[in-house]
């Protein structure tokens, strides 16, 4: 778990190439973060150890390996570093939120995306997470 860590490196996972570009724009230019974009859960498993992100943003609906499945797989692989996860989804009803939290996610970003607000949303989730860790 981070030690009042500053959020710098974000791995963002989405199979939608249009969203990839706009999220990257928002996070890099708007937030100043270093961003690595992945197109699938499988790519995350291959590249997360090298990139060492502070935070992982996972799209929920992806072919082959969904966001939740990617998270579960990561949790069962001891050689993969434990990284806080935020889900990116259009389903944000109370039951969905509860489900995502039960899987271990620290927050949810709602689709459709407002890319200008995105860096603030991410920072807010990160700060709340950090404050809970240090309570």
């Amino acid at each position: 778990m981070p030690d009042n860590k500053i959020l710098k490196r974000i791995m963002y996972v989405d199979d939608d190439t249009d969203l990839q570009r706009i999220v990257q724009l928002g996070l890099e230019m708007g937030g100043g973060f270093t961003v690595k974009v992945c197109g699938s859960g499988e790519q995350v498993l291959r590249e997360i150890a090298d990139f060492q992100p502070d935070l992982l943003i996972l799209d929920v609906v992806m072919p082959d390996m969904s966001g939740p499945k990617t998270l579960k797989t990561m949790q069962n692989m001891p050689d993969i570093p434990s990284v806080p996860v935020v889900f990116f989804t259009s389903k944000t009803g109370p039951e969905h939120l509860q489900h995502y939290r039960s899987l271990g996610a620290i927050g949810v970003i709602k689709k459709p995306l407002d890319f200008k607000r995105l860096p603030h949303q991410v920072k807010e989730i990160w700060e709340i997470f950090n404050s809970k860790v240090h309570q």
Partner: protein
Amino acid sequence: MAKKILVIEDEDNLGQSIKTFLEQYDYRVSCISDGITGLEAVRDEKPDLILTDLLLPRLHGFDICRTVKGDDQLREIPLIVMTAVYKNAIHKLEAKRMGVEDFIEKPLNFSELLKKVERLLGPATLPEEEIITSEPTQKKKSMDDVIQKQFQDLQQDYASRLPQKIMELEKIWESIQKREDTAKQLAKFRRMVHSLTGSGTTFGFKELTESARQLELLLDMIIAEGEDTIEERKDKINRLLDNMKHHPLVTTELEIMRQMGSNQ
């Protein structure tokens, strides 16, 4: 002549973002992603300013600073160090002793970066008449403007690819109606429509994506209730696809595609 900045940063995306950002302010920017090539570029290009990361492949950023500041030909070039790891006071002191002019912490705050660059370089050179007649600050764009411009480029590119996406949807829909590998095609169709709903709204094409949203709901019902219900929902799906196809944005792009095709 615009002032030249050399960025040495191994995260290519970040280097590219810095380049895009500083070029909006009329600086000339080149990016190098490893230390050795970076140092060679310093010698070859003699930039007006060096912006370097520390943890670089092949040669550490501090070695670049030490070499530049120890070389009579190069030491006048101002250096800004981007630091995520080495940000404690001892490292800053060490870098100051080497002659490094300034630091900036990661994640980068682009407005802060611009301030630091301008403090060392001044605004990028303007033509003489502009210097006399206008305030340089009026020329500056805010970070929001820079992002907005990038967004508009992405939006335009997205719009230009919409007709292709819709034609592809029509093709998949045809094969679903012919019951060719229906389950797989339905899943593909639904995935594409879902993507269109999300990305279309994000890019600001709300009317178009409203049709996609309704289509997505219909497809969810078909997937839940079985392929036998395709027939009864066929007309609605055709109407929604038609709405999407005849959206002014799509028809304009289709017209452009047709004209380009006939000119070839």
